[in-house]
């Protein structure tokens, strides 16, 4: 099956700065792909290349099999791009703004009116149709920009920091909209700093830093590939130190923390090995009153994978 988005050894240099340095990954149809990385990691640059706003120094990117370098016009028909900061026109209201972009995407007559109607309904902008854009709140402007992105009903959406600057309510609503889009089978490439949200809505994520892709896959896959991806919490009656000594003899523990009568340590094993460990603890005479395993969050994985380096 042909991927809807494909980065192929993509490079983009700005003088000595390697903003994007050999990125390759694919996003299949209907997937929501989270693109995460610290500021200046190369997310926006690679998204702009995908949106045909920039060209790579080397390599290529494809949307539905079409090269962004050689066939930008075909890519643009299939792609809706929501930039992190976007401009609006003075003396234009919401309906006129959407009408302009509908015309710009060659939608005519009833087809155009239907697209505007559908977009306003979907983004819940109906009531603000006649309101000047300059009078809209940040959240409403984000919705309008999303509406503009959706006006020609593209199968691929590239959303660069769509939740930036939104209040919690607007953020939740935006997340719901993206879920609905994903449910309709659209391929979404989304970047955000709010990792908990991405973890909830993304089928796959890519972590990028200093222009290099450090990890890619489903959230589970990435978590599993990181050493000590599970945090095991054990509470015993009595001293914790003997348990730690016993564990250190038995398995290699690199990261641990003693919190009162509770020992928390990183563990790479699966569910079966965790069950075996509990059984062995009890058989060894430790009086275990609480035993829990927690998967590390995307935030933890992100912190572990990235080094916070900027270029």
């Amino acid at each position, binding site marked *: 099956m042909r991927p809807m988005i494909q980065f192929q050894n993509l490079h983009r240099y700005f003088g000595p700065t390697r903003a994007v340095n050999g990125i390759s990954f694919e996003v299949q149809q209907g997937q929501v792909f989270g693109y995460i990385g610290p500021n200046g990691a190369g997310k926006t640059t690679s998204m702009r290349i995908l949106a045909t*706003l920039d060209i790579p120094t080397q390599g290529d990117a494809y949307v539905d099999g079409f090269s962004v*370098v050689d066939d930008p016009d075909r890519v643009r028909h299939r792609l809706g791009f929501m*930039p992190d900061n976007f401009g609006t026109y003075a003396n234009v209201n919401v309906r006129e703004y959407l009408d302009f972009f509908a015309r710009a995407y060659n939608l005519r007559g009833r087809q155009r009116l*239907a697209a505007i109607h559908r977009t306003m309904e979907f983004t819940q902008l109906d009531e603000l149709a006649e309101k000047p854009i300059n009078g809209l709140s940040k959240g409403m402007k984000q919705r309008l920009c999303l509406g503009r992105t959706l006006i020609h009903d593209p199968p691929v959406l590239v959303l660069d920091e769509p939740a930036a600057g939104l209040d919690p309510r607007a953020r939740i609503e935006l997340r719901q909209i993206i879920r609905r889009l994903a449910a309709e089978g659209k391929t979404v490439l989304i970047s955000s700093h709010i990792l908990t949200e991405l973890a909830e809505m993304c089928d796959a994520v890519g972590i990028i830093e200093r222009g290099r892709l450090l990890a890619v896959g489903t959230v589970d896959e990435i978590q599993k590939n990181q050493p000590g991806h599970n945090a095991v919490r054990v509470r015993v009656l009595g001293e914790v130190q003997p348990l730690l000594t016993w564990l250190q003899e038995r398995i290699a523990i690199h990261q641990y923390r003693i919190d009162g009568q509770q020992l928390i340590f990183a563990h790479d094993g699966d569910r079966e090995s965790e069950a075996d460990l509990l059984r062995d603890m009890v058989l060894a005479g430790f009086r275990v009153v609480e035993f829990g395993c927690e998967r590390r969050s995307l935030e933890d994985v992100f912190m572990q994978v990235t080094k916070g380096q900027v270029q």
Partner: protein
Amino acid sequence: MTSSDEAPAIATDERGFWAWFDTWCQRAGEYLNPILVKETRQAFKSRQFVITFSLVLLCGWVWSVGGLVLTGALDGSSRGREMFAGYFFILGFPLLVMVPFGAFRSLAAEWEDNTYELLSISALKPHQIVSGKLGSSLLQIVLYLSALAPCLAFTYLLRGIDLPTIVFLLFWMVVNSITVTLLGLCLATISRARHWQVVYSVALIAGCLWNYGLFCGVLTEELVLRDRIALYMVDPEFWVANGIIFSAAVGYGALFFLIARAALLFPSENRSTALRICLVVQYLLFLAWAFWGWLFIDPDLEVLMSFGIVIGLHWWGAGAFLIGERPELSKRARRRLPQSFLGRMFWTTFNPGSGTGYLFVLGNLASAVIVLAAAPYALTALAPTATPRIDRSPDLALYVMVFLGLGFCYVTIYLGIGRLIILAARRFTEVSVQLAMLVQILLVLVGTLGPMLLQAWFSDSRGYTILQISNLFWTLEATFRARHTPFPELPIVVTVLPFTALVVLLLNVRSVGRELRQLRVDAPQRVQEEDALLHPSPQPEPYRSPWDEDEPAARLTGAPDA
């Protein structure tokens, strides 16, 4: 989003003419440029347009009342000319200053407000973006004209100015306004850096004000107030001059449009071929007008040299930009390269690239040199008695040839050296087309001012010496006057310059040849698949013998059913 919601229907009240007209306008509006629609909506709500439009109307009314009193038209004398001059100045300001500058700002604001990116990723093509902005300016021109139309009609009723004069002057004002508007749009696209935008903005507003003062001042003084238009209108030279100026306005307007379009095109697109075609059309237009004027107005051989100077400047200016193009062709551009032998022979130099640009300029300039040098001989051979005023001395014809040949050598040398410098610089850094132009200007400045300064410091001679051989202006000027003023260095100049030009040309040959060998590539599989899906080729009908008695054939021939 995929659900097919019912759209609110377009109002189609069939009662009455206005309802029909409204529906018709709505339908027609579907085919208008989206930018024109948006800008018109914006303009009608903007304070700037309302204020400017109101001011024009107010000035018109003030001049209608004040002008009548000041010019003494109230006593019944023919003061239409003076009144028209006032209205012409009032109309000129919005048309020659506000509209062009407004178009420049409108496009420049797209980068400043981050809205251009949203436009560029839509289905709008760059030519639609530029023509949308131009269309919006044209609409403003029409509105300003219609605002002052009653006043202009009023001057005709006051007598003293006739209708052809009014139409003639308004025609030129509109042509001037459109050309300057296109220049403004072109400047807005050349550089997106803020500091350059400021420079261009100041230059444009100054240029617009200068153009406004000169155009309105000269035309009203010469044609209206002195009432010389009647004299001019019967003079054929006047109409030839009008034809030349109109051709130049159309030619340069088209060039500005194409430059703006090229600047907005995606980097992998072919930005150059359309510009090169426009340059050739401009050149041919000039050549046609020049020869027409030369033959019928002033058949002097020395005039041919001035034609040569204009053509040389045209191609040198074009070449300075063209040699700055990148030598690599994108796969997208290579998909449309000419494939046939004749196509490759005639169209290869129209392909983008610095080498093809160099060759393109030299080819066109060589054709100009040949045509201009051969013109007197051709005229003598074809019509020996047609133009008795022509100076047919072989001595003069030789000087014309030498002058044109040296001009060609200078262009070959300067563009060739500039191109080699740019090719070398590209190994280390990015060189833009603007930078290539600057390199060329610097090169000519060094070649011109350098020897002049050297001569001023180290020599007492104030006349031309062989040190000035790199100074194309002085050398060509000395050659131009050589028939009347002694030019002893001429034999050295005609030996050294062609030899140097040949050496520079040979130094460029290898890299130019590499560009000429570019071949067409096929579109990728995915593109071919989609094209086949969108435009399926008609399936060939299976071959059927006319003797087969199948059913349709039997019906056609009226044969009875079996």
